[in-house]
Each structure stands twice: as structure tokens, then as C-alpha cells.
């Protein structure tokens, strides 16, 4: 018999014994070990996550279920969630990233929603110098592509940053988005005594046994060999069939609750469903359809085999559901019933192998982690002699270069909703004839490393700005907080201040968090990653009012909106008051039809932002950076990454400036659209040449 190695602390072990008043058996220990892990329980992060604003008039289903749901119009609501799959992707990039997509899509699906889009914020190592990082990058993208493409859910956006702190521990975060009719929402709850627990989907194997506890430990190189059983292989065809079958099953109204089997597998899904319903469960684990022989009850309970879901089916309506599943060739098994008594009881061959109070499983104790303020990094101000060379260098930097190599591998148009396609500030999906949603991402990990406080604030501000830039009004946010080892006080401090910063920002913008995820222990060999609190914002857009960033008409004025400060080489200060004023101004200008192109400024500042607008539109510009009134150097004017700025073009620039003044926002006309040059005043470069450099920056590093 294989001994189970517990990852519980000594204190936790003591606590279990005293709560239970006896020694748990092996199966019970395995369950508690998984359910009390950081990844499944949020035991370190829970008390801080309470800081987030979670309520709002549009919130239909808030934090606490598998995904958030936000009202859209009278009939429809939008489901949205975000997850990380960092550790699995570090070990096996294709399968790790693919199962990341699979997992978030099932979160969406479990709430009765049809998955309509994914976005994939990625953080990779130094692909210039590190072969392994290049391998990971290529294969992570392949994993996302193979999976998302096959299941017919378009990957419509994301971002990608490269930094050597991610060499051994890349980040794969995925945002999932779904569409659901308001009256067809299903919750992750089983509250009717007598309802059948129906396990649906793939046969259970030993995949990913202890995947959760594995995600709650640091990656150590010598760990790799041992962690291999944790690898879960993806099966996108099974996922696609789950989607098609369940969308049909939901129509019957026979499903009273649903949850996907993610981290923690069978036991996590079932115990949480009955716990939320205030009930208990009687499980016959022998009924589970298995892929491998000789699996022990604890293995079946904690296995993380992919492409499985748990349904609570109204008593007497099982056959109706099973018939539809059979039609689609989806396997199923009646594995238990909801019981009144709040116990989690598991039988195996007629013998009781688990008998625990549900609360012990689902309510692990909170841990109060110690934190210690870390140092902020001094700005790294480059001395720029050759503006042209510096700009070209930036355009070629994989952090700034075109991400076409990534998103062309993703089917981003399936389901025929994608109005604004990847490559712009935010994606726009058509929902009704007149309205759509915008999806924007924010987080500059480099800024977060230099200054976790401003970095996190910047993440919110940037995500909102990206939505604003396409004409969207932000209505909700999701987040994925990627940090190092929370047991280390400095790492925990970074987490704490990031949550505080994001919470403050969201309150200032008036948007709630509806779902999120925390990923700790992102360290390899003791070196933590650059902290990466990634924020995704959902906005609402009127389709006839969407904006894009490409320069259009020769002669139109180019206007910079917002203040440029001396913030090159550092994390810019983020003042939410000012951010909001600028966003509101842009939306107002868009409403009155004054804007012909719009782009928010982020990495590489004004110089890079203008260049991208030129590449997308295929038109050059003639501006005079020198004419900007700020008393800062030309280098700062060109490359400072000050927050809260946009560049817009307009045929009525005076009106733009006037409206800006009305809101106390600075706006300066700096030149106009036209020509075949990027002409900045002090220097200029050829449009085609610069574009080539930008297009090839990432692509040429890869096969």
C-alpha cells in the first residue's frame, strides 16, 4: 500500500484530530490534505480578498461560485472567470496550458453558460537567452491553441511579457467568458435532499493525483521527476462533447446544481456543492467509471482527470438527462445522493471509508501570514543618445513587438462574434445586434517588481484603459494574483499591497470583482517571480460606437490626453481620480463622435504608442514632441510610461481640447496623420522599416 505523504502542517494535523475527536483514516487524511491545501482553500489569501468590492447593480452571481455572472441586457448575462495553470505548464507546457483552458471553460459551462471566449495573459522567461523558456513559450501557446481551437471557443485576447524571473516558472492565466440567459443560470449548489449526484465525462484515471498540493509548493528542480504523476493530459474532443451535451441537458431543467471537477477533483466538487446547500452527501465511490484498474478510494476521490463535471439531478429525472448524454457519447455514473445530515460519507464495496462532517472538509482554518515591507527598486533611467536606435530596439523587444505570432495560432473568430480581433487594446464581442462586450487586460509585471504598490494599481488602471480605448464602459473585473511563497514575509507583503491597490482602484472606478484566483508558490529554486496581479476588465460597448487604434485620415489631428511625467524606467504613479477623469473624457468624446482613432499608452510610452497606431492603420504621422509643454527631457516625453494617457485622432481637435479642459484633463495637439514616416520632431523613421522590426521582434526568435 502506497503511503500518502501529507502536506499539512503539524498544527493543521493537530487541529484535524481535535475537530474530529479521532484519528482520521487514510482516505480521510487524503481528502483533508487536498481540501486544506492553499490552492483549494485560499487559506492564506482569504482574509485579504475580502477587501475587494464585490457588489454592484449588475452583479448576478458574485465571488464564491465557479465564475462570476454580470447582467448584460434583459435576457442575457455574461459569465466570467479567471484561473492560473502555472505549475502544470512549467512541467509539461502543452498539457499544462491546454488543461488550463479546459478548466476555465468548464467553470463557465458549469453555471449554465455557453463558453464564448477565452483570453490568455502569459508571463514567460527570457526567450532571447534561455532555451527552456523558448521551449515553454512555444509549447504553452501550442497547448492553448490546440485546445481552444478544437473546442470552438475563440481566444480573443491576452497579453505576454518576458522576464527572466519567469524562466523556470512561467505564468499561464486564462480568462473564460460565457453567455447565459438570466433564468437559466445554474449554481454550484446541491440543496435538495434526494437529488442524484451524477458524474459526467471522462473515465477517472490517476491523472494529476495531488495536483492541488503540488500547486501549493515551490517548484524545485529535483522535484520534477516526482511531480510527474501530477501531469494531466488534455482531451479537447471530450470537452467539446461536454459543452454540446450539457447545453442540451440544461434545457430540460432537470439539473438543480452543477460544478466542474477541477483542483481537488471529485471530493472538492461534491463536498462544496452539498456544503453550500447546507446538506450532506452519501457517495458510492465504486460507481465511478474508471480508466485504470485497482484505483483506491482516495485516488478516485482526489484524482484530477480532466473533462469531468458533477451534476445534481432532480430526483426521478435522471434518465432524461442520461439519454441526452448518451446521444453525445458522454459517459456518466450515478455516484451518490444528497442527504439531510451534514456529513460526507463515502462507501466502497459496501464498506464506509469516509465519514466526516462536511464542514471539516470545506472550512479549513485561515492562516494569518506575516508580512514585511519590501524595498522599492530605484528607477533604471537609460541614457539615450540615439533616439531612432532606441525606438527600434524597443519595437523589436518581445515585450513590445507584435504578438501576431501568438494570436494567429488561435482561432479567434469561431462563433462569429469577434468584432475587434486580437492585436488591439481590447477585444470586442458582439452579443446582440446593437451591443457587445469589451475585454481588456492589465498588468505590467516589470512595474510590479519595481514597486508592487504602484504596479498593482497600474494593473487595474491599464485594464480599464484598454476597455475605454475601444469605447467600452467597464462594468466588472476578474483577477488572478500570481505571487511567490506566502510563507516568506516579503512575498506576502507584495501580495497584501497588491490586493489593497487593486481594491482601491476598483472602488474608485466603481466596478466589482466577480471572480478571481490566487496562485502562490511561484518560485523556482528560491527565486520568486516578478509579482503579477493580472486584472481583466469586462466592459459594455455600443457596436456603432467602437473605436480602434489605427490611424485613418491624412490631416487629422493627433492629440495626447493626460499628463506625461518624468517616469521613464520606473513604475509610474497611479492616481485613480485622474485615471477616471481621463477615461470618462474619452468615453464622452466618443459619444459625441469626436474621435477617429484611440489608443491608450502603456509599454514604451508615447513613442511606441504612436508607432503602433501607425502600423495598424498603415499611415504615418508628423508630430513635434518638442512642442509638448511639459518641462521634461525629450527622452521622457518619448518614452516615459506615465499612467492615465491616451492618444486620439480627431477631425475636430479644438473641440477635444475644450472638452478635456472642461474635465480638468490636459490635452495637447502634437501633430497630424499622414505620410510614410513616423516623424517625431527630433527624429523620424520609415514606417515600413519600423513596422518590419516590430512585426519580426517576436517571430524571429521562434521557429
Amino acid at each position, binding site marked *: 500500500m502506497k503511503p500518502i505523504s501529507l502536506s499539512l502542517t503539524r498544527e493543521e494535523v493537530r487541529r484535524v484530530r481535535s475537530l474530529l475527536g479521532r484519528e482520521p483514516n487514510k482516505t480521510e487524511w487524503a481528502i483533508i490534505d487536498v481540501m486544506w491545501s492553499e490552492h483549494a482553500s485560499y487559506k492564506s489569501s482569504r482574509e485579504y480578498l475580502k477587501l475587494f468590492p464585490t457588489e454592484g447593480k449588475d452583479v448576478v452571481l458574485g465571488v464564491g461560485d465557479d465564475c462570476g455572472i454580470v447582467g448584460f441586457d434583459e435576457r442575457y448575462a455574461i459569465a466570467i472567470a479567471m484561473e492560473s495553470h502555472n505549475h502544470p505548464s512549467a512541467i509539461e507546457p502543452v498539457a499544462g496550458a491546454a488543461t488550463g483552458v479546459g478548466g476555465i471553460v468548464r467553470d463557465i459551462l458549469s453555471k449554465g453558460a455557453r463558453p464564448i471566449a477565452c483570453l490568455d495573459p502569459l508571463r514567460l522567461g527570457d526567450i532571447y537567452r534561455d532555451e527552456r523558456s523558448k521551449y515553454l513559450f512555444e509549447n504553452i501557446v501550442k497547448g492553448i*491553441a490546440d485546445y481552444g481551437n478544437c473546442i470552438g471557443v475563440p481566444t480573443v485576447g491576452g497579453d505576454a511579457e518576458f522576464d527572466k524571473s519567469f524562466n523556470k516558472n512561467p505564468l499561464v492565466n486564462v480568462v473564460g467568458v460565457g453567455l447565459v440567459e438570466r433564468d437559466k443560470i445554474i449554481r454550484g449548489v446541491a440543496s435538495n435532499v434526494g437529488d442524484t449526484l451524477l458524474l459526467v465525462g471522462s473515465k477517472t484515471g490517476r491523472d494529476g493525483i495531488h495536483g492541488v498540493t503540488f500547486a501549493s509548493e515551490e517548484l524545485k528542480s529535483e522535484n520534477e521527476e516526482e511531480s510527474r504523476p501530477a501531469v494531466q493530459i488534455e482531451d*479537447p474532443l471530450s470537452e*467539446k*462533447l461536454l459543452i454540446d451535451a450539457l447545453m442540451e441537458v440544461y434545457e430540460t431543467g432537470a439539473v438543480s446544481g452543477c460544478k466542474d471537477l477541477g483542483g481537488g477533483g471529485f471530493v472538492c466538487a461534491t463536498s462544496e456543492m452539498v456544503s453550500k446547500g447546507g446538506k450532506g452527501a452519501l457517495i458510492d465511490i465504486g460507481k465511478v467509471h474508471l480508466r485504470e484498474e485497482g484505483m483506491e478510494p482516495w485516488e478516485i476521490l482526489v484524482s484530477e482527470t480532466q473533462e469531468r463535471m458533477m451534476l445534481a439531478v432532480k430526483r426521478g429525472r435522471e434518465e432524461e438527462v442520461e439519454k441526452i448524454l448518451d446521444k453525445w457519447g458522454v459517459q456518466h455514473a450515478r455516484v451518490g445522493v444528497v442527504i439531510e445530515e451534514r456529513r460526507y460519507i463515502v462507501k466502497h464495496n459496501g464498506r464506509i471509508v469516509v465519514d466526516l462532517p462536511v464542514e471539516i472538509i470545506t472550512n479549513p482554518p485561515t492562516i494569518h501570514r506575516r508580512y514585511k515591507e519590501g524595498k522599492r527598486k530605484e528607477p533604471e533611467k537609460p541614457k539615450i543618445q540615439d533616439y531612432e536606435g532606441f525606438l527600434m530596439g524597443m519595437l523589436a523587444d518581445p515585450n513590445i513587438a507584435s504578438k501576431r505570432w501568438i*494570436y494567429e495560432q488561435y482561432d479567434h*473568430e469561431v462563433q462569429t*462574434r469577434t468584432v475587434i480581433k486580437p492585436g488591439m487594446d481590447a477585444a470586442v464581442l*458582439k452579443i446582440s445586434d446593437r451591443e457587445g462586450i469589451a475585454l481588456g487586460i492589465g498588468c505590467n509585471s516589470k512595474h510590479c517588481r519595481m514597486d508592487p504598490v504602484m504596479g498593482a494599481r497600474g494593473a487595474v488602471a491599464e485594464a480599464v484603459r484598454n476597455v475605454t480605448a475601444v469605447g467600452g464602459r467597464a462594468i466588472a473585473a476578474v483577477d488572478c494574483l500570481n505571487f511567490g511563497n506566502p510563507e516568506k514575509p516579503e512575498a506576502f507583503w507584495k501580495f497584501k499591497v497588491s490586493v489593497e491597490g487593486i481594491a482601491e482602484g476598483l472602488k474608485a472606478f466603481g466596478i466589482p470583482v466577480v471572480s478571481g484566483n490566487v496562485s502562490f508558490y511561484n518560485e523556482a529554486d528560491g527565486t520568486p517571480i516578478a509579482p503579477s496581479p493580472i486584472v481583466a476588465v469586462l466592459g459594455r460597448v455600443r457596436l456603432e460606437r467602437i473605436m480602434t487604434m489605427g490611424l485613418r485620415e491624412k490631416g487629422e489631428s493627433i492629440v495626447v490626453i493626460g499628463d506625461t511625467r518624468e517616469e521613464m524606467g520606473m513604475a509610474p504613479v497611479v492616481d485613480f481620480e485622474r485615471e477616471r477623469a481621463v477615461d470618462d473624457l474619452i468615453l464622452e468624446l466618443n459619444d459625441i463622435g469626436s474621435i477617429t482613432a484611440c489608443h491608450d499608452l502603456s509599454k514604451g510610452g508615447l513613442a511606441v504608442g504612436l508607432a503602433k497606431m501607425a502600423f495598424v492603420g498603415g499611415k504615418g504621422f508628423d508630430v513635434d514632441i518638442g512642442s509638448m509643454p511639459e518641462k521634461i527631457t525629450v527622452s521622457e516625453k518619448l518614452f516615459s510610461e506615465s499612467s492615465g494617457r491616451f492618444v486620439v485622432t480627431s477631425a475636430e481637435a479644438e473641440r477635444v481640447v475644450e472638452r478635456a479642459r472642461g474635465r480638468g484633463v490636459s490635452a495637447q495637439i502634437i501633430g497630424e496623420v499622414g505620410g510614410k514616416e513616423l516623424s517625431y520632431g527630433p527624429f523620424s523613421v520609415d514606417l515600413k522599416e519600423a513596422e518590419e522590426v516590430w512585426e519580426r521582434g517576436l517571430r524571429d526568435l521562434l521557429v
Partner: protein
Amino acid sequence: MIGVLQFPGTNCDMDVIRVLREAIKTETRPVFFKDSNLEDLDGLVIPGGFSYGDHLRAGAIAAKMPIMSQVKKMAREGKPILGICNGFQILCDAGLLPGALAKNIGLKFVCKWVDLRVENNDNVFMRFYKRGEVIRMPIAHGEGRYVCDEKTLREMERRDMITLRYAGENPNGSMENIAGVANEEGNVMGLMPHPERASEGILGGEDGKRIFESMVRCISLK
């Protein structure tokens, strides 16, 4: 009535149905691969996706499913049958169209808009285009490199069976830039680009819509 065929893993079925119903305003129904009766259908679209997960070869398993004998019967009766992307792969593997679709030369899945030249407009699907006209549609596939033997290629050229070629860059290494082919009778056509994704201005263009319009017109003329 036009049918839109659904295999396990098909993922563009709803998109095609939406275009046929809403943009073309024609009666359309989904056809599940276990359906046994296709008698009511005047035409059929085999949409894109990853039937059977693209395992074995793209389209290979679907092409051998029992329902395909009925599709072949429809083809023999002269009813229009359009295969888009995975549907094209299925039609080739089922022997309804010559040639095969191999892995893209770049080995990667490619999703982007491309320019296409109309080579032949004398068939059920192409009559609303002009010969030589350049149109834009998106592609999204990993196995779209058209190949066939030399003799077949010459035959196809002689009988005017090549309907579309990539007009700009060749995105997948297709032989002679082939993007779409039809059978000799002109009632069965397969193409890698997705006309259903190019049927609404706000989604990027409407150049693909005429394929469906042409199909529907030909049916109503019968």
C-alpha cells in the same frame, strides 16, 4: 431546406446556421450525424471544426461514418453540398472531391484573413462572383495544404474544378495556391476559408455571403 451537418467536434455549425437563417433567410436545420433521414434536404453544408478531434487525420473519421453514404446519394442526385474547412477535409477523405489536405507547411494553425482569387464561377456556389475577382475571407486551420497527384491536377484544371486560389501569400503551402475545389458537375464544393465568417460587415467583410446566396438561388431555380 438546407441541412448543416454536425459530427462530434464540429464547431462552426451554429455559425453557418445563423448566416443561412438570418442573413440569407433560408430554411435551415441542423443534421446530427446519427440522423437517418435526409430526404427533406435540398442542399447540405458540412461546416468547420474538429470532427472527432481531428484524430487520425482531419476529417478522416467523419468521412467514414454511415451518414456519408446518404451525403453521397445527395451528391449523385445533383443536390448542392458545400464543405467548409473541416467539411472540405471530410469531402476529400470521403472521395467526393479529389485530393487531400495535409498539415500546413508551417506546421502551425493559422487564423487570419486572406485574399482569394475566383478561378471559376460556373458552379452552384460561385455564380454571384466574377471570374478573376479578388475577395477576402478568413482562414483558420492547421491542415489545409491541398495536395493531389499531377495527373489529377491537370484533370482538374482541364475540367475547371479549381474554384478559389490564394491571391496573396500562400498561407499553408497548398499546391498551386489552391483554396477551393469543386467536382466536375459543380454541385459539390470544398474550401478552406470560412465564408460564414465573412457574411457580416461588422465582423470584417461580406465577401463570403454570396456563396450561400448562390447555393440558395440554385436550389430555388430547380
